[in-house]
């Protein structure tokens, strides 16, 4: 039975006399337009909100990443950068909002492993590696390939695999630590190992959380070069507080604050934004 009087809705897309039909049609149309734009994107966040015990760590965050784009994310401590990555990788479920990958894959419906298999790789802010495996095995486990238990059981080492690992070890300068347990690496070496694991995984989208923390200036430059190279074939989201590094990346910058976008644009544009200076860069 009817409970509410029919609102005189917009007459134009009149579909049927049913009171909700028009409303539905409008909604569908609106969604289609949004979807249309979304379909071109690699990563699409819209209106994402996440609160912890009432504290809004992410607040109606919207962010779009095109295929093949590299984006730098900056923002004050606690702005929600890591939480955003947690949401993308399925570690945290958002309270509301849309998170789409490759246009139509709803990431909120997938768990971490599925998301990783879709082609999203991540480096954590605090380096996390498999401590009682050696460097070589850490990389080997990360290598792209089947993720089924039985294929792991039957797996045989191949020459290509070895070559790939060799290359990654060289890139991360861990060749001589190859058979060291990851537990015995220094902080910075673990950072590199994690980057190596990300390379081995060869994902379509890389999320890198503070990759150069604890690296020397020279290593920082090296990392920037590496990321630029990757970004030629992949999409990358980098979170960093090191402005030199961000500058060297030379990409569009998004500044988050209190869970939403504060400013977006080139680094110069963003760092000129007085609000960014106020909350982030300082005087």
């Amino acid at each position, binding site marked *: 039975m009817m409970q509410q009087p029919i609102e005189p809705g917009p007459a134009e897309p009149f579909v049927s006399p049913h009171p909700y039909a028009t409303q539905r049609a409008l909604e569908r149309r609106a969604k289609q337009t949004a979807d249309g734009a979304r379909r071109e994107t690699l990563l699409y966040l819209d209106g994402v909100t996440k609160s912890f015990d009432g504290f809004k760590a992410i607040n109606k965050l919207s962010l779009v990443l095109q295929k093949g784009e590299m984006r730098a994310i900056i923002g004050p*401590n606690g702005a929600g950068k890591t939480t955003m990555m947690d949401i993308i990788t399925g570690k945290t479920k958002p309270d509301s909002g849309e998170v789409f990958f490759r246009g139509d894959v709803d990431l909120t419906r997938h768990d971490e492993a599925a998301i990783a298999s879709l082609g999203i790789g991540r480096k954590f802010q605090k380096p996390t590696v498999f401590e009682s495996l050696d460097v070589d095995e850490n990389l080997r486990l990360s290598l792209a390939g089947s993720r089924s238990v039985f294929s792991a059981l039957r797996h045989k080492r191949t020459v290509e695999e070895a070559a790939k690992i060799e290359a990654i070890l060289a890139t991360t300068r861990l060749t001589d630590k190859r058979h060291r347990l990851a537990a015995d690496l220094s902080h910075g070496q673990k950072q590199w190992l994690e980057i190596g694991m990300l390379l081995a995984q060869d994902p379509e989208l890389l999320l890198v959380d*503070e990759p150069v*923390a*604890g690296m020397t*200036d020279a290593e920082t430059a090296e990392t920037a070069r590496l990321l630029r190279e990757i970004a030629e074939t992949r999409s990358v989201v980098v979170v960093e*507080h090191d402005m030199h590094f961000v500058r060297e990346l030379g990409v569009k910058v998004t500044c988050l604050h209190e869970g939403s976008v504060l400013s977006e644009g080139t680094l110069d544009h963003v760092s000129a934004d007085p609000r960014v200076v106020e909350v982030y860069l300082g005087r």
Partner: protein
Amino acid sequence: MLSATNVDLFYGAAQALRGVSIEAKPGQITCVLGRNGVGKTSLMRAVVGQQPIRGGTITLDGQDLKREAPYARARRGIGFVPQGREIFPLLTVKENLQTGFAPLKPKDRTIPPYVFEMFPVLADMLGRRGGDLSGGQQQQLAIGRALVTRPRLLVLDEPTEGIQPSIIKDIGRAIRTLKEQAGLAILLVEQYLDFCRELADQVYVMDRGEVVHAGPAESLDDPAVRRHLTV
């Protein structure tokens, strides 16, 4: 104040420090630099007592620290901000700060106000569990916590890691203030060269477990020194 001479340190069979000697004086900032894995953290662990040394001596005010447990060293006035933050995850921010009361006399058991001036976010989040903080917030908490113990020697292992630029500037200012007004000795490991150059009175550069250069901050511009910091 603090002096380490000829320190050797091993992890199992692997040697991480070879005959390292450094010195930190009150009212001075001593900065240790070096690439990843050269032994900076190991040296700090040796100073605070987390890792036993196999050779050499470490003295504080001329007294050998060899037999002192880490807590005894803390009670002698060494404050430590470790690499990796090491927050007590289940304690609230306030409780994390209060752990610094341990070496203090009951009447001194207050949190110095400048901690909150330097890191206002901590004041906002006193009731939140330390483990829930963001990386940078944890780093701020770690520094604040060390200051609660009213140290005479402050050991900072990459304290700016993960901290936003404006606060790094604040930390720089604060460290300088501590050095100048309270006369603290500050031992600082830093990768962030500018930060170091700006603050340091004395720098040590390490490579492969050894000190390869010691000198004033300006000496960092020397290409020969720089060589140890490049890839």
